[in-house]
């Protein structure tokens, strides 16, 4: 019955009779869908942008550093600084089954120079594992990351970022060149790329070199390692709890002293962030659905007016033998038809707008904004969902008016002038 061309001819002829009204009805649904798309795309955009900040760091990792104790313990006074050392590495390697790649870290800031150019640069001493933990990417054909030999031989080599390359080497190929940091010469072995906030000068050097030159040959500032098999926030909390306890044993501080070591759990933060965004998404969905509902109510209202205006005609049709199903079908089909056509126009505009903004954001000079909003589009799944929603909306919008039409009494309907 739906594909009966006769029915469509009837519907098209009634729509043609009421062009303005149909347009106004359609506009409300187009607007609803457009708003829905814009809300969803911008929500996705902000989410994608924020995600890109997490992007370069392996999501499942934990970093910790020594602070100072807040309570006296076993004869030690409070405010005793905690320094990480080989015991920590041994503990993680042998007694923490969840740990994967491990790297100790030493950070410092140095004035570096090459020829007449100089700048301030943060140095971080790391082991080769660091590359995997933080997903460091080496720029194409621009050398390598720190390797085992660099560590073993305490080599004075550095992997620099693009910013350092730009300032010291004027974007020339820096690999193999020697620059000076505090009177010591470092050979550039590679250029790396890190997808994260900020664009400051930074360089990685072998951990052993950093320890020897900048940390009196002992200890470390931070230790970072990847975690396996911790999926939920609860798992992570429990792990952190257990980990603090183990650390308190090797560093001799009160197990309940939370100030003694600082912990940054990437996954836990990620999960919290995800929770926040799910909240924002839910909010956007509620507003979006609200807007759509307003559109549906609009269509329903206008269909109701249509039915009222067509009361006489529907009465005549019933007298001539139109079955209730035929009346119901024609009103519902008209409603679905209007909703779908105009809904698609709205969706087309909304998706188009998203793609347009997306392409603007991807153009050069927009990198910073791209960390806030990125790829503000909606995916195919949502589009198919919207299609189903549109048809259901049409049915919902048409149901009440159609019911009214079916209830029309031919005798009374034909009496009204």
């Amino acid at each position, binding site marked *: 019955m739906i594909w009966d061309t*006769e029915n469509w*001819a009837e519907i098209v*002829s*009634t729509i043609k*009779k009421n062009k303005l009204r149909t347009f106004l009805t359609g506009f409300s649904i187009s607007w609803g869908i457009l708003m829905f798309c814009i809300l969803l795309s911008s929500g996705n955009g902000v989410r994608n942008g924020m995600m890109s900040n997490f992007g370069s760091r392996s999501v499942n990792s934990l970093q910790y550093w020594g602070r100072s104790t807040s309570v006296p313990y076993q004869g030690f006074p409070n405010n005793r600084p905690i320094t990480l050392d080989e015991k920590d590495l041994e503990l993680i390697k042998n007694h923490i089954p969840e740990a994967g790649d491990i790297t100790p870290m030493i950070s410092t800031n140095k004035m570096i120079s090459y020829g007449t150019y100089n700048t301030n640069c943060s140095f971080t001493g790391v082991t080769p594992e660091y590359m995997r933990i933080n997903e460091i990417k080496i720029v194409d054909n621009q050398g390598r990351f720190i390797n085992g030999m660099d560590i073993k031989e305490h080599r004075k080599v550095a992997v620099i970022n693009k910013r350092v390359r730009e300032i010291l080497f004027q974007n020339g190929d820096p690999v193999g060149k020697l620059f000076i940091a505090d009177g010591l010469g470092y050979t550039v072995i590679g250029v790396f790329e890190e997808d994260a906030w900020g664009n400051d000068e930074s360089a990685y050097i072998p951990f052993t070199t950093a320890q020897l030159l900048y940390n009196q040959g002992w200890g470390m500032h931070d230790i970072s390692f990847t975690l396996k098999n911790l999926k939920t926030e609860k798992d992570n909390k429990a792990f952190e709890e257990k980990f603090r306890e183990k650390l308190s044993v090797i560093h001799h501080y009160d197990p309940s002293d939370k100030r003694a070591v600082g912990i940054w759990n990437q996954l836990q933060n990620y999960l919290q962030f995800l929770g926040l965004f799910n909240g924002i998404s839910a909010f956007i969905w509620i507003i979006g659905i609200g807007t759509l509902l307003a559109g549906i109510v609009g269509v329903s209202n206008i269909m109701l007016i249509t039915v009222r205006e067509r009361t*006489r*005609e529907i*009465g*005549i*049709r*019933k*007298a*001539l*033998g*139109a*079955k*209730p*199903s*035929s009346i119901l079908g024609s009103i519902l089909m008209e409603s679905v038809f209007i909703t779908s056509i105009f809904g698609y126009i709205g969706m087309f505009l909304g998706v188009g707008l998203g793609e347009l903004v997306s392409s603007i954001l991807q153009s050069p000079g927009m990198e910073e904004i791209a960390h806030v909003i990125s790829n503000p589009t909606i995916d195919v799944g949502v589009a198919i969902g919207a299609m189903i929603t549109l048809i259901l909306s049409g049915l919902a919008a048409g149901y009440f008016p159609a019911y009214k039409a*079916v209830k029309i*009494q*031919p*005798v009374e309907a*034909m009496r009204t*002038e």
Partner: protein
Amino acid sequence: MILLEHINKTYHNGAPLHVLKGIDLEIKEGEMVSIMGASGSGKSTLLNILGILDTYDTGKYYLNHVLIKDLSETKAAELRNKMIGFVFQSFNLITFKNAMENVALPLYYQGVSRKKRNQMALEYLEKMGLKEWAKHMPSELSGGQKQRVAIARALIARPQIILADEPTGALDSKTSKEVIHILREVNKEGMTMVIVTHERAIAEETDKIIYLKDGVIESIMVAK
């Protein structure tokens, strides 16, 4: 053709209103009868029951030996479509369809193809002398023409009876005569016809006049 046995009908809008108080009536095949009565006598209600547009409370109504009682809306629509042709006082043509499409409408609800039903509609319009008006909209037709289109529409599904509710009520006396003449012609071809009217001149053109008063049949007058 039509057999009514003690039909009762009460409306319950506020105070109950007993409109039809036991109507017994037989109309034979090929008869042309008129129903007369003052307003409020129940003649419209009777016509609506005959046309399966309204239900009745007690009694029995046989249309062509079929008991018409407690029908679903769908079944009622089907019977209206096949067995009954309506002619109304205010023509009741669909304003945005041309004469041909209006005439063809009952066939649309029978599932007849567009080509076939339009062709048949043209034949019936020709019978009414309106062939060249087929593509005109109702607003472009005179009252008499509109009523002839409506008669064509009532005939196209080849019903058992024609029910006419004040068919000449909106027409001048000359056009009224034309219309009643056409109805008589249709009747002569064997169509049973029931006309509700308050014009004596029209009623006197029929074979039998049924006088209704306060929901009962007061008298039946057979024409000479």
